[in-house]
């Protein structure tokens, strides 16, 4: 196959990537393909959340800063960022698979997150306290969920914090009384996506536009990318890169 990784051949150097945690499965797979074919190239991947990605790339600490939300105008202007969107993703509320509650109205969701509803029995579930999980301010996933699903409503202060999409999924999978929100691309049998006003968060509803809490996944660079960084972004957008996107459960852009 006319490899999209051919341009890397014979090159050496390091690409540093950090930021959005929704991106990590795709980043890891892409890095693996590239490094396997080109042992002289090393690619390091760190998480931290979208805010961190934008900040670190802006400061020149990393070469690529990922974000699960579009960088704000202020950020773009301050750091001279270039945004590359390579997948579309949704953010869905999720509960433990053992939880009978699988559908909520937006109002109910907001009440849960603001702390007005604290027991699953008020939602038709069993008599057990609701454990609310949330992400920190740096998270793009949180920003999108807060804006589009909670309409910028309050998040109760007793909510447990987790540090990434992966961690959110794990926490929900382990806690029978949990509710949280997670990238649709990350959802699998270990958690149950909660239908919002009747629309389940799945890759298809996101693709069709039916599920509204959707966002792009971005890789950002400071100024126009060059060298290995440029090749890496080109690789993500290539057919081969987009195949990885699909394989990891996201909606491709091309």
């Amino acid at each position: 196959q006319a490899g999209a990784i051919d341009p890397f051949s014979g090159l050496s150097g390091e690409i540093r990537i950090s930021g959005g945690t929704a991106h990590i499965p795709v980043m890891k797979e892409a890095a693996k393909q590239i490094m396997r074919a080109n042992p002289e190239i090393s690619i390091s991947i760190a998480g931290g959340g979208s805010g961190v990605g934008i900040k670190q790339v802006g400061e020149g600490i990393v070469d690529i800063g990922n974000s699960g939300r579009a960088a704000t105008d202020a950020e773009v202007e301050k750091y001279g960022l270039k945004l590359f969107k390579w997948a579309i993703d949704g953010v869905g509320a999720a509960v433990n698979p053992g939880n009978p509650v699988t559908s909520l109205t937006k109002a109910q969701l907001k009440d849960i997150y603001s702390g007005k509803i604290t027991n699953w029995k008020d939602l038709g579930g069993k008599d057990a306290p609701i454990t609310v999980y949330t992400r920190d301010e740096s998270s793009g996933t949180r920003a999108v969920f807060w804006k589009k699903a909670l309409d910028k409503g309050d998040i109760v202060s007793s909510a447990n914090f987790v540090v990434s999409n992966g961690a959110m999924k794990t926490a929900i999978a382990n806690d029978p009384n949990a509710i949280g929100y997670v990238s649709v691309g990350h959802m699998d049998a270990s958690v149950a996506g909660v239908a919002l006003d009747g629309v389940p968060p799945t890759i298809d509803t996101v693709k069709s536009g039916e599920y509204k809490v959707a966002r792009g996944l971005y890789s950002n660079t400071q100024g126009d990318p060059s060298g290995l960084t440029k090749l890496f972004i080109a690789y993500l957008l290539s057919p081969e890169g987009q195949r990885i996107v699909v394989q990891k459960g996201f909606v491709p852009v091309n």
Partner: protein
Amino acid sequence: MTRVTQQTARIVFFLSAAVSAMAAALVFGFLLVFGFPLIGGGEFFSLLARPWSPGQGLYGFLPMITGTAAISFLSIVFALPLSLGTVCFMGGLGPARISRLVDGFVRFMTGIPTVIYGFLGIFLLVPVVRTLFTSAGSGMCILSASLMLSLLVSPTMIIFFKDGFDSVDVRYIQAADALGADSVQRLIYVILPEAWPGIVTGIIMGLGRAMGDTLIALMIAGNAVHVPGSILDSARTLTSHIALVSASDYDSLAFKSIFACGLTLYVLNAFAVIAVRKLGKKRGQAR
């Protein structure tokens, strides 16, 4: 050895000591400079008593302070009896052979990584706490974190206690033996008073370790940003807070606030160190 090598050695020793001592000041300086925008406005103390709500521009860390206090205090409460009991066991109350085994095991425990306690906490302790106490919600709470932490700090405390015990001169032990002291009396009248500095150091080190640990609380205390009302509540420590927020924009106030957090930890620690040193000294003079 010539006078020159003498002098050189002396200077090298001095520089090492001076540099190491300056390290503490250097860390302080960095925290101060980086956290200045928040601290400089004289806001520092009001931050201590305020809630955290970046949405409303509030960067107080009362929740984190209470969380840290609750978790570290509780862990010492669990660890102190365990450590004292164990060191007394090794100091003559237990059979010699078993004592040696326990000693080896405790030293080995210092090598058990905190992240492994966190890891096992998630998969073993948290589910247990969740099933035992329904009001513990997820099971990620102060109780879980302090239980795990107590295992982390015990060996540190025991080793310092034991060093104190070992530094007691054999001749004192022989003298007490020859006068007919049994193992309990020897412990209470001769060894414990002599080993007092070691015990104080052990407690400092243990408390420092508990307050300073990040991973256990980060992984199993739940990290909720509120003032906890019970030991079954989720809580966030100052250290977890730094780990979680070090990830935001450099120029944001939220980011600067973690330096204030760091400073708080620093100052708390300094106070503890000074207080316990005073205590140890007083005791030393009383003898």
